[in-house]
């Protein structure tokens, strides 16, 4: 990990218009991604993790979605302001993606070879034979046995774990600078999850690829990510180095989340800590802290205004009145 920032997300806002009102799926998200860094984004369903990353590569379906503001700077150029033709050169090439369900992100009618060669020919300008060689090489790196034979098979002939390996091979075949992995292991069993995470870490390290890993599992984050963003109701509530956040979580939501996961390695107490209440309905969310109804430390101000970002050492930020309040006074 170096200090070179390759991707800068600044105050990103993505809204969806639905019958019931306006859904602020992402509402002012900012983060930097450094070269070779693995950044984790955790949060519960509906917290805006996936929408953030679809917005980054400008894949939000419009309508109903709309990027309402902000910038996504990739080497200083704003991806959101780019014409489609130009961003297509980057998508799948410099920035590639892996999705949760490998069965729906691979085309079931096309052989794996066809799908992989298409990408490589398009972005790398190789001829078909060279592209096939490259594809076979990538499959081998991703740990698929007998890749020369398996490349000519169809996706349904692969198991779930193998399909995810194909996706990894495919997404890394153009040496991307950034890999966005959206819940890459959530549909897989633990033993297969361990295999896939290991392959992904090993390959991205070797190729120097930066990774944005979206997940709901704190365990996966702890083992793989350098930096961590915790999202709640469309905003990043806490951001910083993974080990520091786990050691000393500051936002009450992060604290609660870490405490409410049962652990394998230590004796659990008789009762598990749990955050009370339900995640908020994100339709027409008022401009207050969305966590306050569930927060143990809620104060009057929390109901009135969204907290400003408080900065800490090591690039840590926390959005909570417990920390940002002190500055106003």
């Amino acid at each position: 990990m170096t200090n070179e920032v390759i991707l800068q997300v600044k105050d990103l806002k993505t809204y969806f218009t639905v019958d019931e009102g306006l859904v602020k799926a992402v509402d002012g998200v900012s983060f930097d991604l450094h070269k070779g860094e693995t950044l984790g984004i955790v949060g519960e369903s509906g917290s805006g993790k996936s929408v953030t990353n679809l917005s980054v590569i400008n894949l939000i379906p419009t309508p109903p979605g709309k990027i309402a503001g902000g910038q996504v700077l990739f080497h200083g150029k704003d991806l959101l302001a780019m014409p489609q033709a130009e961003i297509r050169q980057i998508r799948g090439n410099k920035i590639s993606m892996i999705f949760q369900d490998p069965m729906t992100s691979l085309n079931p009618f096309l052989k794996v070879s066809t799908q992989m060669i298409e990408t490589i020919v398009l972005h790398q300008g190789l001829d078909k034979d060279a592209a096939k060689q490259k594809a076979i090489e990538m499959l081998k790196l991703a740990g698929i046995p007998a890749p020369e034979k398996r490349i000519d098979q169809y996706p349904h002939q692969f198991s779930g774990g193998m399909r995810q390996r194909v996706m990894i091979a495919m997404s890394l075949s153009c040496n991307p600078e950034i890999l966005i992995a959206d819940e890459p292991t959530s549909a897989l069993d633990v033993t297969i999850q361990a295999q896939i995470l290991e392959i992904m870490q090993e390959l991205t390290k070797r190729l120097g690829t930066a990774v944005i890993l979206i997940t709901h599992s704190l365990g996966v984050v702890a083992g793989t990510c350098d930096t961590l963003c915790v999202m709640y109701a469309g905003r990043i509530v806490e951001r910083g180095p993974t080990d520091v956040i786990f050691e000393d979580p500051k936002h009450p939501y992060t604290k609660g989340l870490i405490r409410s996961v049962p652990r394998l390695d230590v004796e659990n107490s008789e009762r598990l800590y749990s955050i009370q209440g339900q995640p908020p309905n994100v339709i027409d969310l008022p401009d207050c802290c969305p966590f306050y109804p569930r927060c143990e430390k809620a104060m009057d101000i929390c109901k009135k205004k969204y907290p400003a970002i408080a900065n800490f050492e090591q690039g840590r930020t926390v959005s909570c009145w417990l920390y940002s309040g002190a500055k106003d006074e």
Partner: protein
Amino acid sequence: MSKTDLLLDVRNLKMHFPVKGSFLSKTQNYIYAVDGVDFSISRGETMGLVGESGCGKSTTARAIAQLYKPTGGEVYLKGKDLIKASAGELMEARKNMQMVFQDPYASLNPRMTSGDIIAEPIRIFQKRGLVDMGKDAMNERVEQLMERVGLSRFFKNRYPHEFSGGQRQRIGIARALALQPELILCDEPVSALDVSIQSQILNLFKDLQQEFGLTYLFIAHDLAVIKYISDRVAVMYLGLIVEISGAKDLYKKPLHPYTQALLSAAPIPDPKVEAQRRRIILTGDVPSPDKQRPGCYFYDRCSKRMDHCKTQRPRLKETEDGHQVACFLYHDPE
């Protein structure tokens, strides 16, 4: 625990599903989803059942509840064999044995109100004269149940789509409690829930157990969840139980190579611990349960396999410290 405390005793339970053989061929093929499972649960105990997808956890629970007619074996609930029981006897037994399902979206009828859903089991048993409860009493019971599982009684007339995932699971739990059963079969009841909701529901299960003296068969694929909720744990692989032990022991000292791999693969939410862990990465995928093998089912993926593991199948046997394990590392082949 003495024998009289035994609530559920499962012996050599088998559940084979027929699948079509190839065109024109007369051979009938089977999926051996559960292929000889033995375990027992004492009153007031929580038995965790853990394993990867397709290992037969859910099938085991459904075969115990007689939602599938098992291919073979015996299932004793309070000493009564459910497989041989008549329809009437089974009905009576089911009053004592209820289920909570994984998907709170699919397991509640979208056209019934939450109050009706919870009252449904009582109504069914009332029709058959197995429960005697007046309308007012039933209403009161439903309201009590709702409040007990953490739902306001004013939600009684709402439909499932008006509730969140965690609240729906609470409805499912209230329904399972309606007949005051002794045994509840929980089939991945927290797997579809978010972390913060999952811990609420796990605590609810624990509280209810204490309050009503419930016995659980608790299925999950998350090992940390199983460890938290269970007294004893059974690990399944390809339709067989490979290890049973006390929850704490299992995590401290797993014996079967599969249990060891499973535990080491589970991520721990602590970067410091993760940095120092050494994983046993299993090669390959879980094989398909479409044939019976002569040897150990884990043979292909095992790092400690020996020659006789291929030809002889290890049986579940007790080791000195109360573990039961099916592996030739701990006992000699017969």
